[in-house]
């Protein structure tokens, strides 16, 4: 265990306005679609409208003859060169997966799959040409219903023989972290309480604002690929593996990237196809998707059926939890599709002390867009399930839902704590965060008002929802990832280059796309190296500049990536000591770091790193053996996860006449450990909560019975606007992590994980007295109203 260092900080903790803003505010941006090269060609994809079928013929003659069209490529043209797309996570030894070509060869497995591409001199001509590609399909029955598919009633990939990709289980009794869950349930059936529920985690679409775009340039000695991705380093490795282009000949750049939320944590068919088009034509090629293509063909998230059995004694102390999941993989396995449920597997017990725990999951193929990471990735699903269950248990016991949580949670003096799922929580203070949240919320007053309105039969009922969440974040310890079947590690890399003019270049392996690493890393380095915030330049997202790295996802950038920056900074100081000693005419052993200078112990005499960098540049009279650089690079791998937590409280007003839900008040108190930049942290929490609220109230990816995504535009996929969301009243407690030197935990996913159950708990709480104990997400007015009607109508 690392002990958080106590160092004087000036920049860390300061609400620095972001460096990134200057270009973003003025339109001086470099989105991939802004990149135009001489002679560049444009690609339009021809996508299957059929969810499941075989391609019987493709006629490209008319398209090839169309004005401006340079090439039309089908799978037959690509041949073996297109290879297959990778899945990077084997969650079970016998995991099955169909071959995943970038362009369908003869079998199409979801509506939106690419079946041909048209390369033309302009994007309009490419689109004109795409209309002329004539594809015939024979229909196969689409495999759409998750539960039917799990039973192999219809096969998504007939060649595979089954829809089940993998089944995996984890039981506390097998790992010595708790008892036998079946015994606990049996005991509870006899003498306690058993809550059994099925919850649907509806399919969501990440819906980053910048549609994906790729430019592949084959001219010159090296390939340059600009792509709107969270993971340029992954793209480089996999592009080399799939296309056979040597990795050393590939430069991948993620320029300005307009949001990701897990949705750009992917190695995509479109990336491969753009490279193949460039290879075929010898010219730079660009592909930019439309929004409707993005919604249809970029990976989706969530989509699980959760069957839950909670056992408790009659006082409401939980003795066991059994989780049985069906997880919809969609048509193929993406990079980490198979492991999304696994990332939630260790979080169903959340902040609680359970006697026993069992998790079982079946990954199932269907003829829908494939699913993969979406903000929270597995953990929102787990948190939703347990936080909803705790409310149900409270109702059963007849106590306030807050009380049931207090009875079961880990108290602050019990840390470090090994959970029933086998994770070691380093720190936390659930009581403190909850007390603060309750006070800001006016919990008791709202409960009083709720009772008054219930008693009066008010057509608008008040409900209060609680979510006391935690998450494991900071992906991740490489050893843990290896133990779980992931092919890559979870370390991060950074290098620091001290420029002779006193400026500092920080190269990070993380790949930000809105998170503000340029600002936050500058703050950290400014403190660490005693340089001005303004003098630090953070470089990222270009594999020729940041050669090593594992990119940005899973709230890992600060707790892993920034720790590599810290390690590199410390190395710079160490590396500069011999030069400093020479310049100060002292023994190396007498040189110490003052916070801004290397000094001779006990004196005020010293040299800044900038001065040393300049002296090293000159090297006019450096002694033998001193390196002509004080630059350094370093890696960091975490020993364990970090565990942010918090309490979110939501008050909703449910109009029982229309079913409309309005959020009246939303309070969050998050404990994310030490805060580097409170402005950025607040922004992450706001946006996270908004996405979680959107799952509760608005968003759902819906397929019709032919397998067409009918929420295929922003008309029907309801991303909320400013007018649809309230102001969030957010605050923090600060219990530093003990697992890294900065005491940080990560904040990117917290709001999303916490908010969904808070909202749904509030809605159910508003109408529970009418006999309602569940409403499926998204809780649309029709669903809420129908639930009230089924329960016998409003009072």
């Amino acid at each position, binding site marked *: 265990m690392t002990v958080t260092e106590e160092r004087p900080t000036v920049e860390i903790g300061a609400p620095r306005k972001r460096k990134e803003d200057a270009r973003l505010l003025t339109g001086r941006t470099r989105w991939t679609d802004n990149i135009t090269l001489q002679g560049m060609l444009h690609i339009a994809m021809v996508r299957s409208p059929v969810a499941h079928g075989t391609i019987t013929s493709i006629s490209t003659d008319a398209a090839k003859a169309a004005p401006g069209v340079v090439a039309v490529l089908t799978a037959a043209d690509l041949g073996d060169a297109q290879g297959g797309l990778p899945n990077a996570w084997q969650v079970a030894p016998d995991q099955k997966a169909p071959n995943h070509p970038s362009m369908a060869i003869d079998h199409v497995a979801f509506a939106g799959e690419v079946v041909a591409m048209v390369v033309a001199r302009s994007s309009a001509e490419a689109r004109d040409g795409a209309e002329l590609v004539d594809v015939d*399909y024979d229909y196969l029955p689409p495999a759409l219903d998750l539960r039917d598919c799990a039973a192999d009633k219809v096969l998504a990939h007939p060649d595979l023989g089954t829809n089940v990709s993998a089944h995996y289980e984890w039981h506390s009794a097998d790992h010595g972290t708790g008892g036998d869950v079946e015994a606990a349930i049996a005991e509870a059936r006899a003498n306690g309480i058993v809550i059994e529920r099925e919850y649907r985690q509806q399919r969501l679409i990440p819906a980053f604002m910048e549609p994906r775009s790729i430019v592949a340039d084959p001219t010159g000695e090296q390939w340059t690929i600009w792509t709107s991705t969270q993971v340029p380093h992954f793209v480089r490795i996999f592009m080399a593996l799939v296309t056979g282009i040597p990795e050393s000949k590939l430069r991948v750049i993620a320029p300005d990237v307009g949001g990701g939320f897990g949705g750009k944590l992917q190695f995509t068919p479109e990336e491969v196809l753009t490279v193949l088009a460039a290879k075929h034509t010898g010219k730079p090629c660009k592909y930019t998707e439309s929004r409707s293509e993005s919604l249809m063909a970029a990976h989706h998230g969530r989509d699980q059926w959760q069957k839950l059995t909670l056992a408790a004694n009659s006082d409401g102390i939980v003795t066991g939890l059994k989780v049985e999941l069906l997880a919809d993989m969609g048509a193929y396995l993406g990079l980490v599709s198979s492991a999304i449920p696994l990332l939630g597997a260790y979080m169903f017990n959340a902040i609680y002390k359970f006697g026993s725990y069992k998790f079982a999951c079946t990954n199932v193929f269907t003829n829908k867009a494939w699913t993969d990471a979406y903000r929270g990735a597995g953990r929102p699903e787990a948190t939703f399930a347990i936080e909803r269950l705790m409310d149900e248990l409270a109702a059963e016991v007849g106590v306030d839902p807050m009380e049931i949580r207090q009875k079961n949670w880990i108290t602050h003096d019990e840390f470090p704590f090994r959970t029933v799922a086998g994770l070691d929580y380093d720190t936390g203070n659930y009581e403190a965060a909850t007390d603060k949240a309750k006070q800001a919320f006016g919990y008791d007053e709202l409960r009083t008002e709720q009772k008054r309105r219930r008693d009066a039969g008010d057509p608008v009922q008040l409900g209060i929802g609680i979510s006391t969440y935690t998450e494991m974040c900071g992906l991740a310890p490489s050893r843990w990832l290896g133990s779980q079947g992931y092919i890559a590690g979870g370390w991060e890399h950074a290098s620091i280059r001290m420029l002779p003019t006193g400026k500092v270049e920080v190269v990070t392996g993380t790949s930000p796309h809105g998170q503000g690493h340029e600002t936050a890393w500058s703050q950290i380095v400014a403190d660490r190296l005693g340089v001005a915030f303004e003098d630090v330049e953070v470089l990222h997202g270009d594999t020729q500049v940041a050669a090593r790295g594992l990119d940005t996802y899973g709230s890992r950038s600060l707790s892993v990536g920034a720790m590599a920056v810290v390690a590199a900074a410390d190395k710079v100081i160490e590396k500069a000591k011999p030069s400093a000693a020479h310049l100060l005419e002292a023994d190396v052993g007498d040189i110490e770091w003052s916070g801004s200078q290397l000094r001779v112990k006990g004196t005020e005499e010293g040299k800044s790193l900038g001065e040393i960098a300049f002296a090293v540049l000159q090297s006019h009279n450096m002694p033998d053996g001193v390196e002509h650089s004080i630059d350094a690079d370093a890696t960091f791998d975490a020993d364990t996860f970090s565990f942010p937590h918090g309490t979110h409280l939501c008050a909703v007003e449910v109009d029982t006449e229309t079913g409309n839900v309005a959020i009246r008040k939303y309070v969050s108190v998050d404990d994310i450990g030490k805060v580097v930049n409170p402005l950025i942290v607040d922004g992450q929490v706001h946006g996270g909560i908004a996405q979680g609220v959107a799952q509760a109230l608005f968003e759902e990816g819906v397929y019709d019975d032919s397998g067409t995504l009918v929420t295929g535009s922003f008309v*029907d996929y309801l991303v909320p606007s400013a007018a649809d969301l309230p102001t969030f009243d957010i605050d923090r407690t600060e219990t530093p992590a003990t697992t890294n030197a900065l005491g940080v935990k990560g904040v990117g996913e917290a709001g999303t994980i916490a908010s969904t159950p808070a909202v749904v708990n509030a809605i159910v709480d508003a109408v529970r007295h009418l006999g309602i104990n569940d409403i499926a997400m998204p809780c649309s007015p029709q669903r809420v109203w129908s639930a009230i009607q089924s329960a016998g109508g409003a009072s």
Partner: protein
Amino acid sequence: MELTHQFTVPASIDDAWAAFNDLERVAPCFPGASLTSFDGESFEGLVKVKLGPISLQYTGTGRFAERDEAAHRAVVAAKGKDKRGNGTAAATVTATLTSAGDMSTDVTVTTDLNITGKPAQFGRGVMQDVSDRLLAQFASCLETKLGESSTAEPAVAEAASETVSESPTAPVSAQVPRAASEPVAELDVGAAVFPVLLKRYAPPIIGAIVGLWLLRKILRRRR
């Protein structure tokens, strides 16, 4: 999606079956369609659909999956695709006539419909409703036509007289109401419009598919 429509016509089953097959009379229920080829068993056709701001043009093929005169049952399987690659459509249409008395016949039309691509992608949830409505209009139109079978008037259409000559046992078939153009106009899917834009892109194709089926029957009669 499977849609079923039932209605009863005041005609004997033989008269109704014959009338039903007198496509010159019922075909106007399905505007916008035209046949491009027919080889006896299978056909190719074209359906232009105009839905408010949306215009689609489907080309399709189909064949008789079943046609049982004794059981008064016909099944047509057809599929088509939009000429600009906007999507595909397929339908299996089953029509069954059952006698419900000397001068009464029950008609059941079951349509198993599969529409893909943009008209479905941008028509969230409305499809079923609109398809149902369309087929209900079709059924209602048929009901009117078949119900007119006992009030025959002199043939007014060339095609109709041709039909008469082929099908002398169907005395009702020659009659085309003078006002035909008006009720037909109401059902004119081609000119009318489905909810499309951004809110509800609907499936024109239902009318189209059934239209193809009827046209195919016309050709059969003309052989």
